[in-house]
């Protein structure tokens, strides 16, 4: 009888709690809080309520129901963002069957990275373990493809694609046609790419083809505007019928409306100049990826207000280049006023993201810019700085608690929260292997 009463009481209590909808609260106390955008707070407390950061400060009261995490001697950072990755679309680099990043076709505006991505990719736990809480997963073009499709902003939590999705689409991936000089088309990751025939390459003048491609793209943009207008007219009952279904144009709607940036993979000075012209002509928001040699036209990029994704830090300079060229490029971009974010296109190397930023700081980039380039800058570039990129009240609680500077290789992540949920850092296949073989009985 008493057992039943107790059980009823417990059930009532659970019911009461869920009825009130008490959001889970955490208080991380006594920590050094590196907000990124609002300075650093010493001996501070950060309160997480539900999915968001509820309070930050030195004299913040700890709510009565909050789980307290003693942050003495620890540091709190916003989670890092890799804005250009194949995470979820490529599992094992050398295994064709595990690669879904590349689709055939030229103007694949209708492709959605989110729909091919694996929410159980092994890389997720590794990204989290290293303090990376968000990524932008990117489809890529094949052959002479121009549009690869919609990129998606994923958080590294959740069980399903829906739970991982913070913004979809967050960008459109475009490979800029090569105007000939200026080197190879930049491309990250591996993937299947249909080979073009020798006849194809010989027949076509690259500049002529590039101009044709851009004219087609501009036509697509114009048609998309008409498509939007036709949809609006129909919705407002100004026209009797909707426009004829066109998924290619529908894919471009958020780009044309200026809701998402176009991530343009482009390399070499000449091609980038053409791309700047294209961006001005079409009035789209743009981010340049690949962007080798961006430092040579840093002023032009700064003037055009085009940010870049920098993924060349771990490149060996050529024989006549300064020995530290790729380490020092971020400082050149920063001085010129070009906004940039670090990215590692292959997810199996994602753990190196913070170290790229740190190394750039060793070679002249101010430390705060280094930190911003893996947090708030990518958030700003992709229009999600209202929810991500810094520790501010009201933003998503993507919070990383470490025992040191987040950009240092010897630092460990101690606690982590994604959308306010406490992350199980041990949920990392590599770490589980470590524990398993550490526990192997010592051979006699």
């Amino acid at each position, binding site marked *: 009888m008493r057992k039943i009463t107790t059980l009823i009481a417990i059930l009532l209590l659970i019911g009461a709690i869920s009825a009130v909808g008490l959001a889970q609260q955490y208080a991380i106390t006594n920590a050094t809080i590196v907000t990124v955008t609002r300075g650093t707070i010493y001996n501070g407390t950060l309160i997480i309520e539900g999915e968001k950061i509820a309070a930050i400060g030195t004299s913040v009261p700890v709510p009565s129901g909050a789980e307290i995490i003693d942050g003495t001697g620890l540091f709190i950072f916003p989670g890092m963002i890799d804005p250009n990755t194949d995470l979820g679309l490529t*599992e*094992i*680099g*050398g*295994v064709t069957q595990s690669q879904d990043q590349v689709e055939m076709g030229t103007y694949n505006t209708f492709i959605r990275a989110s729909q091919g991505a694996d929410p159980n990719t*092994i*890389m997720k736990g590794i990204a989290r373990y290293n303090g990376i809480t968000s990524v932008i997963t990117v489809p890529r073009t094949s052959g002479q493809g121009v549009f690869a499709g919609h990129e998606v902003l994923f958080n590294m939590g959740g069980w399903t694609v829906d739970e991982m999705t913070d913004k979809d689409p967050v960008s459109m991936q475009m490979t800029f046609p090569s105007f000939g000089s200026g080197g190879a088309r930049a491309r990250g990751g591996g993937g299947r790419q249909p080979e073009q025939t020798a006849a194809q390459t010989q027949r076509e003048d690259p500049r002529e083809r590039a101009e044709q491609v851009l004219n087609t793209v501009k036509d697509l943009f114009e048609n998309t505007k008409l498509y939007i207008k036709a949809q609006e007219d129909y919705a407002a009952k100004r026209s009797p019928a909707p426009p004829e279904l066109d998924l290619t144009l529908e894919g471009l709607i958020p780009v044309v409306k200026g809701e998402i940036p176009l991530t343009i993979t482009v390399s070499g000075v000449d091609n980038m100049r053409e791309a700047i012209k294209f961006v001005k002509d079409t009035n789209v928001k743009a981010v340049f990826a690949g962007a080798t040699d961006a430092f040579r036209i840093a002023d032009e990029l700064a003037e055009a207000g085009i940010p870049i994704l920098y993924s060349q830090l*771990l*490149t*060996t*300079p050529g*024989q*006549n*280049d*300064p*020995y*530290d*060229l790729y*380490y*020092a*490029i971020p400082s*050149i971009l920063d001085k010129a006023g070009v906004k940039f974010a670090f990215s590692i296109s*292959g997810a*199996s*190397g994602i*753990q*190196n993201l*913070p*170290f790229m930023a*740190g*190394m750039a*700081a*060793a*070679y*002249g980039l101010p*430390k705060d810019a280094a930190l911003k380039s893996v947090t708030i800058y990518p958030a700003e570039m992709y229009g999600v700085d209202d929810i991500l990129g810094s520790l501010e009240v009201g933003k998503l609680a993507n919070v990383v608690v470490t025992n040191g*500077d987040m*950009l*240092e*290789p*010897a*630092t*460990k992540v101690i606690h982590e929260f994604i959308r306010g949920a406490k992350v199980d850092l041990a949920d990392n296949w*590599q*770490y589980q*292997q*470590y524990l398993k*073989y*550490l526990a*192997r009985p*010592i*051979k006699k």
Partner: protein
Amino acid sequence: MHGIKFKLVVRMSLVCLAVLGFSISASGQDLFISNATILTGTGETIENGSILVRNGKIAQLGTNLSVPFGVEVIDAAGLYVMPGIIDAHSHLAASGINESTTQNSAMADISDAIVHDDYGMYRALAGGVTAIHTLHGSANVFGSKDEVLKLKWGRPWEEMLIPDNVEGLKMALGENVTRSETRYPISRLGQEYVIRSYFRQAQEYKRKWDEYEAKLAGEIPPANEFEQEFGPIPPRKDLRMETLKGVLEGKIRVHIHGYVNHEMAMAIRVLGEFGVAPTSFEHCLEGYMIADELAEAGTVASLFADSWNYKVEASRAIPFAAALLTERGVVVNIHSDSGERIRRLNLDAAKSLRYGEGMTETDAIRTVTLNSAIYLKLQHRMGTLEVGKDGDISVWDAHPLSVYSKCVKTIIEGVIYFDRDKALTTEKWLQGAKPTDKIIGGAK
């Protein structure tokens, strides 16, 4: 008479001095480094310490040392000094690395393909590297003999060699070997057979030579009248077998490219049948699964810090391996196998502190210094800063395990081969400095 003799002695002494002086400038110099934080690699850190290098060897180490007359001084106030980094697995300075037409190219020697002015060596110097182990590739089961080079950039390659270096043989297992598909073996089964059959032949070869030499020494009587009259007939020389005979006699190190646990365990067993233990497994991605077997065999785990998942056999690597293997008593080195990673091995070493427990700072530093020297069996002259060892030193502007550090000087046997003050940096290049051999060289 007496006068003439005296003059002769004086002249001869002068000639001797001149010869001596020349040999000093070619092989080792004097240098005094003062006021540094010295991370010796022995576990000891000396604050405000000094190092005196005499004739290329560390002569004194400690605090309150006085500068001998005429010795060049580097004031290292605020700087950190550690042993020169030794990359245990590199392919720099080799014009070809795979003689893959045969399953056994043990007759070949990477020393025959050395390119003394591969500028990758200078790039490596700029990352604090003073010596590299340059190896054959992994295309066949038996690769070639190796070479160990000090990165004396600008000097003839003969001067880069280490006088008391023992040779090593590269062997390989797994996917890279079977990739050929047209050359036996195409599976790990065949790989075992190739190893066993060649070592059986080598045993036979060695037996014949031992017998021949015993007859020469009169330890065994001649076999017949012919031998009695003309002496024993030497067996036919076989250059492949000569190398394997050296392995059987313990005169040649054995470095086996291995990824998965079972192929490495197989190699330990099969080589064990011939009384040979592998000196190291190269890359050793699943070595953590057979830690005790490695420890028992005394085999060094020569690891990537965190490269993984680029192919199937790399899909079970963990960055925790360095910590786990160190804890289980295995000597661990971290190598680059790359002209890019070789430039930041200090940070790859630092990662061993991030992943797992138990590693000390000294352990981390040793993964790229002393442990590489042990692997090469050159720990008597390299790998730590101790009196009597070679004056191979790297100087850093911050703690070398910090992402914010950069190498400012690299010294080999008392000679500065990289000096950031003299090198072509991006900063100077932007101000109009041009690459010249002298600047690229950085050598005196």
